[in-house]
């Protein structure tokens, strides 16, 4: 059977194809101890991790903005 790291790498690539970046990032982390010397793996892993972080930051900002709007309305 495939080694767990190989399977994680395959699943990360499949998740990238489906644009499921959070799953891809999780699977890349599982595969990392075994593939981190692979240059292509490193680029895909870091890019995906950065994308997930940026998306999360944007989500937070949108939440804050919506809270501010609600407060403005509640205080007239």
């Amino acid at each position, binding site marked *: 059977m495939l080694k767990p790291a*190989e399977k994680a790498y395959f699943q990360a690539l499949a998740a990238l194809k489906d644009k499921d970046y959070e799953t891809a990032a999780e699977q890349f982390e599982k595969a990392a101890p075994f593939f981190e010397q692979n240059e292509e793996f490193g680029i*895909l892993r870091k890019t995906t991790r950065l994308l997930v972080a940026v998306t999360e930051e944007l989500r937070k900002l949108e939440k804050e903005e919506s809270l501010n709007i609600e407060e403005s309305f509640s205080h007239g």
Partner: protein
Amino acid sequence: MSHPESLKKLQQTLESFLERAVGQKEQRLSVLEDINRLDNIARNELGDTTGEAVGEWFARHNQQLEQGDLRPGDIDRIGRILHEIKDGFNRNAGSPEGRKIASEIDRWEEAAQRSRRSVTLKRGPESKKPEDDSISLFGKTLARASGLFLEMSAGRKHLLSVLGESLKSAEIQKNREALLLSAFIIYYLKSGGYKVEPYVKRLREAERLQKEASSYA
């Protein structure tokens, strides 16, 4: 540009980069998905329908090997998975379906060996391309053996376990690069004072098996 706008722009750039990276690897991804599917079958995630699932997998993917869409590492991975599926069927020997699948797996392994040999012949001395001289061929072999070493050493703590894995691949998969890698590791260990006789015996046996397999060509 505001902070959210900068982040949005960065998000789009990263997504676009990943989409293009995946797009360029479409064919490769399809091969990896197929290997992953076969691995799921081997893990019996499909329950009692394993035989049927393997049959369907063969029906869809036998062509890949003949068309040369598979890398040596893929052939090794598929060979490893099929070997385990066959072992599973052998443990529950007797069913006609099991025998049929086991014989299909045997045929695939033979085809995989032929495919390896045809790659060797394509790159042989009869080619007149300047890059196919002995130095270039050795360089390519060394690079493949080095890639194999990186793959096999991942997560392992001692060179001896890498050697064990490499010898196993040379014996079972008849992998020529694994045979050369094993010989290199054995010589390295010998020069460091390790007792390598049992490994030398396995190397000779693997070499004999590979020669025997070549003689069927």
